[in-house]
């Protein structure tokens, strides 16, 4: 190939590289501006949680979405990374010169070390066996952590003071806003690194073992070795999230690595969508927000997130990002209007079913508190008696009627979408 031809080839590529970086620039700008837009200290701490959750969910998706590996104990890496970072913070408290912004690196080292150890056992298997081994390893690690109070502080965990280290450029990270910018910077950098990883040989090999682990062997690669490497890197990034959590909360407990925490990251990643790089970001932001917003309103938040998760597994396995991807071409081609009537026809059923589900769950929780001697809070502003039969019957009827309507309207909506997307393709 002649030299001019080569540069001609190279030019559009560098243009593409610039375009690929655009979302990252926008994300950085958003991270800078957000604290001034979101109201109050509550909003700020919510943003911090979201940043941590984003890193955690992205690291989880390195396994699930990109590598086809379902890790039921992912919080272990976050937790142990957090504990190690907390020890470093305590050393800083004791006068060692450890700059606070480097704590996530300590967390990364912790996450990486544990992932290599755990991965040595689990990554020799794939699929279901791999998933079950991660579950067992997680149980083991949590139990051991509780058995060693001298290292992990027992039930209370370990706590420290992030502002007692040496100030860096006059910043001691005592205030929440300073902590926010530190977390945002780390989250941005970690996310960027994880994205760059998807464009490396190992990142592509991870996709290959997801799709067809056996064939990879006949192309010269040991699938188990790829799994171990990917698992280790994922642990490293989860460890960064752990270091950030230690920074943010100034406390780390065994709860940070509990099976519930592992389930939570699975649920948020899946709801966001495992099929794209950015899906987990949506899930992390949405679920973090909902868990804070809804857990103050209802006791049944966990149940709702579980129901949403199962609904996604059954009807939208691509998660939110999958739904967006499926509709983007249609919308771009200007066919959104064609979908609207069919989709709108699903709304009555959807809202009825939703009302019925919410009603049943809320009545259930009211019934519990009434049995425990409390006076029932109103359901959606209505003073319903959870011990009466009528509210239950009404809620059940709403649910059934909604489900029936949804079933009736669904085929038309699916057809409308298929038609529109075919037309969008043709165009």
């Amino acid at each position: 190939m002649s030299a001019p031809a080569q540069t001609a080839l190279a030019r559009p590529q560098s243009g593409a590289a610039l375009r690929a970086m655009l979302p990252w620039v926008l994300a950085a700008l958003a991270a800078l501006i957000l604290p001034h837009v979101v109201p109050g200290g509550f909003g700020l701490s919510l943003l911090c949680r979201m940043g941590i959750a984003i890193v955690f969910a992205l690291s989880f998706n390195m396994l699930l979405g990109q590598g086809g590996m379902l890790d039921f104990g992912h919080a272990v890496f976050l937790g142990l990374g957090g504990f190690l970072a907390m020890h470093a913070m305590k050393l800083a408290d004791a006068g060692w010169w450890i700059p606070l912004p480097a704590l996530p690196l300590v967390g990364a080292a912790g996450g990486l070390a544990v992932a290599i150890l755990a991965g040595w056992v689990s990554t020799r298997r794939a699929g279901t066996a791999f998933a079950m081994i991660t579950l067992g390893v997680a149980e083991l690690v949590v139990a051991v952590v509780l058995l060693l109070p001298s290292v992990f502080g027992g039930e209370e965990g370990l706590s420290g003071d992030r502002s007692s280290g040496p100030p860096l450029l006059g910043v001691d990270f005592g205030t929440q806003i300073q902590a926010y910018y530190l977390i945002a910077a780390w989250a941005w950098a970690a996310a960027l690194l994880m994205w760059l990883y998807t464009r490396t040989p190992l990142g592509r090999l991870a996709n290959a073992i997801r799709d067809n682990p056996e064939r990879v062997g006949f192309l010269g690669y040991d699938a188990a070795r790829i799994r171990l490497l990917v698992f280790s890197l994922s642990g490293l990034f989860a460890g960064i999230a752990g270091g950030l959590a230690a920074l943010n909360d100034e406390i780390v407990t065994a709860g940070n690595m509990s099976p519930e925490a592992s389930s939570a990251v699975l649920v948020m990643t899946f709801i966001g969508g495992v099929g794209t790089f950015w899906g987990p970001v949506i899930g992390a932001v949405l679920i973090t927000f909902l868990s804070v917003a809804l857990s103050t309103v209802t006791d049944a938040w966990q149940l709702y997130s579980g129901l949403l998760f199962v609904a996604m597994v059954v009807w939208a396995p691509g998660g939110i990002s999958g739904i967006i991807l499926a509709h983007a071409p249609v919308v771009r081609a200007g066919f959104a209007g064609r979908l609207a009537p069919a989709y709108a026809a699903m709304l009555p059923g959807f809202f009825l079913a939703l009302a019925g589900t919410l009603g049943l769950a809320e009545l259930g929780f009211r019934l519990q508190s009434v049995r425990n001697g409390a006076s029932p809070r109103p359901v959606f502003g209505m003073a319903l008696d959870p011990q009466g039969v009528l509210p239950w019957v009404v809620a059940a009827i709403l649910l059934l009627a909604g489900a029936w309507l949804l079933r009736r309207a669904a085929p038309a909506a699916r057809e409308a979408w298929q038609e529109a997307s075919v037309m969008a393709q043709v165009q």
Partner: protein
Amino acid sequence: MTLALHVTGLKKAFGPTKIIRGVELQVARGERHAVIGPNGAGKSTLFHLISGRLPSDAGQILLHGQDITGLAPHDIFNRGLARSFQVTSLFPRLSVFENLRAAAMRTHGCGHAFWRRLEGFAPLRRRAEEVLSLLGLERRRDVLAGALAYADQRALEIGVTIAGGAETILLDEPTAGMSRAETERAVTLIRRVSEGRTLVMIEHDLGVVFGLADTISVLAEGRVIASGPPDQVRGDPAVRTAYLGAAAETLA
């Protein structure tokens, strides 16, 4: 001259059923070698044994004089043997181009690198493009492999097998299920990709076999009952019985 592939006394049983009962096979370097035989004779099983997909019960497999018996598939590949599958085995959620690129990564210095961009491996990209045009799939470059038409998937199966540039190539029924025209295209493709290499191919279509192969081995009841140039094998009475017997069975 050492043989490209030298199989001696190879045996394999699934539970009580002995499928491979002492296979002897010699493949000279640079030849196109067809393995034929009735359905269920154990041809695919033989490939599985050679390529390390299944462990053998007895026998020895030499690749260019090196013992590869009992090695894992990736070790065997790294010694220069690549194979395709009778049941298409691709990466369905990767594009055609990425399938080819993944297939060539090992032999283009990628290792397990997670600190270098895939795009930075220029020879790798060129190799993938080259195979892509060899397959005639340029226009399907960014289509997911899982969404390809059957014949295109079969072509890609061959492409993925040869992309790494292995010296010895095993193709398991590359033309199975294809139409006349598709088969012809596939034969041209196989002829081109096997140039300067050693090819062992399982094939049902005897037209293809006699047009392409330098040597034919006939596998029946777990043994190679005949092996030689096409004309010699064609006239072999043992082969006729094996085939006629099989034909009689299918009729019955």
